[in-house]
């Protein structure tokens, strides 16, 4: 008598799996990477490569020699995502060794310490970025100006980001309408012809990636939309109150890392809530914190901190906000 496989139902499975999801995110990041390479040239490509290679390598080494596991989780693509996002969150001119240290913190401390993919409470790339921001404050806030397809690796011309221009100017007592002359046009900000972190510059490329992920059912609309909408409404109210003191909401959507944060960082499955209701609140919290930091905080940009703080709140959201139950009271 032959023997048959016995297992509980269901006997079929959706085509989606962890690897496909993670590599899907990698594909979704490619448009933004291409735009960066175009506007910042060779340094952008090199910085990204260093980040990706060191993230994957650190994960491999930790898995192999500390966990002593034969399982190779680097195939799942999540370390590649961390590398890409880490590179996207730094200036393209960052010294290579700082990038390597940032990768070690992201993968080693923020991810593998907790047990690897799925176990980490905080977004690894953001932990790496914030670590670098605190450790290397000068290099992390020296923003190269765009120079399309440049191959120059040293003596890069630098300048402040749009958010930096507005924040500093306002502190000096200038008005928004005066400052807006120094800020790139919204069209440039939309396509990415602006200074800033490597991968955050082009709202267009990031939105394209986001649409791809929505289409592939890797993310849902809940976090990005509630995050972006909150920032829009909050800054919109402030702008209506005093347009000379607060920049308009479109500026806030296009400037800095909001799009990258809302579409790629806040949507990280591992560190965001599991049900849609809680996700909307998560996005709302990210939005409020981002605006608070941007306008009243010490830093010109608050996306990283906002998401990290909401990462910490995620377990509470999961515990307190329950999905609607069928036949429940």
């Amino acid at each position, binding site marked *: *008598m*032959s023997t*048959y*496989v*016995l*297992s*509980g*139902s*269901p*006997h*079929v*499975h*959706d085509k*989606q*799996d*962890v690897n*496909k*999801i993670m590599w899907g995110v990698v594909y979704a990041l490619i448009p933004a990477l291409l735009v960066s390479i175009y506007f910042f040239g060779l340094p952008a490509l090199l910085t990204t490569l260093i980040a990706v290679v060191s993230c994957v390598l650190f994960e491999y080494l930790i898995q192999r020699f500390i966990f002593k596991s034969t399982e190779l989780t680097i195939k*799942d693509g999540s370390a590649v995502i961390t590398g890409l996002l880490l590179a996207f969150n730094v200036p393209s001119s960052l010294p290579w060794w700082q990038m390597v240290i940032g990768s070690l913190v992201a993968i080693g401390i923020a991810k593998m310490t907790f*047990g*690897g*993919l*799925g*176990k980490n409470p905080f977004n690894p790339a953001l932990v790496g970025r914030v670590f670098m921001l605190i450790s290397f404050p000068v290099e992390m806030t020296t923003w190269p100006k765009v120079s399309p397809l440049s191959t120059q690796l040293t003596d890069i011309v630098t300048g402040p980001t749009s958010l930096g221009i507005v924040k500093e100017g306002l502190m000096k007592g200038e008005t928004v309408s005066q400052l807006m002359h120094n800020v790139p046009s919204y069209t440039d900000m939309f396509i990415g012809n602006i200074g800033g972190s490597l991968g955050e510059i082009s709202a267009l490329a990031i939105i394209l990636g986001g649409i791809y992920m929505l289409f592939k059912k890797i993310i*849902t609309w809940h976090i990005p939309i509630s995050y972006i909408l909150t920032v829009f409404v909050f800054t919109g109210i402030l702008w209506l109150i005093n347009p000379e003191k607060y920049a308009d909401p479109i500026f806030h959507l296009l400037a800095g890392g909001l799009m990258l944060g809302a579409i790629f960082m806040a949507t990280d*499955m*591992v*560190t*965001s*809530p*599991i*049900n*849609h209701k809680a*996700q909307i609140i998560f996005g709302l919290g990210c939005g409020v914190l981002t605006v608070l930091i941007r306008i009243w905080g010490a830093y010109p940009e608050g996306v990283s901190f906002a998401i990290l703080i909401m990462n910490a709140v995620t377990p509470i959201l*999961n515990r307190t906000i*329950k*999905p*609607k*139950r*069928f*036949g*429940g*009271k």
Partner: protein
Amino acid sequence: MIGLKTFPLGGVHPEEGKYTAKKSIEILPIPESVYIPLSQSLGAPSVPIVNKGDRVKTGQLIAKGEAFISANIHSSVTGVVEKIDEWIDASGYRKKAIIIKTEPDEWEEGILPQNQLNPTIVLSKEEIIQRIKEKGIVGMGGATFPTHVKLSIPQGKKAEYLIINGVECEPYLTSDHRLMLEKGEEILIGIQILMKAVDVNKAIIGIEANKLDAIEHLTKLSAKYQGIEVQGLKLKYPQGAEKQLIKALVNREVPSGKLPIEVGCVVQNVGTAFAVYEAVQFNKPLIDRVVTISGKNFNGGNFLVRIGTPIKALIDKCGGLPENTEKIINGGPMMGKALVSTDVPVTKGTSGILVFTSEMSHRMPVYNCIRCGKCVSVCPMGLEPILLEKIVENNKWEMAEKEHILDCIECGSCQYTCPAGRPLLDMIRLGKNKVNQIIRSRGK
């Protein structure tokens, strides 16, 4: 198509695989021996009333359902009782069965030939329920709950709608689909009988939109029958689940832990309606049923099979098992049971037999949960499968109960969709068992 309804919460869209939808129902020849399990319905096993060596006729009562929830069992063939012994069934365990060596059919007296349509309902409400009980009719959608119990409306409750389940949302299965196409008129008369039994003047047949021909056919036929309406449904699994179907058709939510009658509904499957028609109009007990046999790259079909026929006979009829067969499933791929052997007989609840080759027989590798929340968004009961999995893993039974683990209908949507391949439903089943045990021990 306009006006398709569905349930709002959760659900998945597995590949349909309805390969046998165009294959007419064929009569499977009677095998040499039948193996009729004494436990074919939900509730207590039936008690045999025949002995080894007895000669029985087709349709003769051979085991009585004595408990409140239990059903009579009739001989599906004419022949001699070879023995009453243990035989493997779909659960994988050996259980008591009546084994009969078959001879040419000789029908029990009183069972009328079923070749002519009989639309006149002469029995009263009570007589109908009594007849259904006598003839051993059970829910044929797979749950096998004794139909007479379901039709006996508890004191103080009133049914408003009879819901007829023609959804067949399980992939591959087409037995209900074929029955609706080929026995439409009979089903409609069966529905009228059921309407009389539960005293309602409104019945709604729910059919998913992948069976447009059945929707059209029954809509046309139902014009003649008062109070029967056909409603098309959007494709979504698990729409055939009782609570989801009621929600989709009449927008009422059966409260947690309660039965459909709580919201004035009684749900019956189309196959059951057909069996009721045959029992009430012709005295015919439930001794055969339509079974789909199917699989990817398997030349399957839909067969009218005598209860107790080993599935081997069905498989042989379709040219035998392909060489790389590794899994055989009793039922659909979402909720069916993997079988141990092809000796397992067809019972009243067997809607299909699936033959899976090696590439479809194994589960994907298990990863860490990535907290994507897909299991939560597809759960049609609004539960959090990932949370329940963790709770069960940690043996936190009270917490499991508090998180409504018993609401789970075991549709498998969570595990189907989990990109990390986690054994969510396996763990939830385990937890449900444990929590049920605890609740029972509390009552003592």
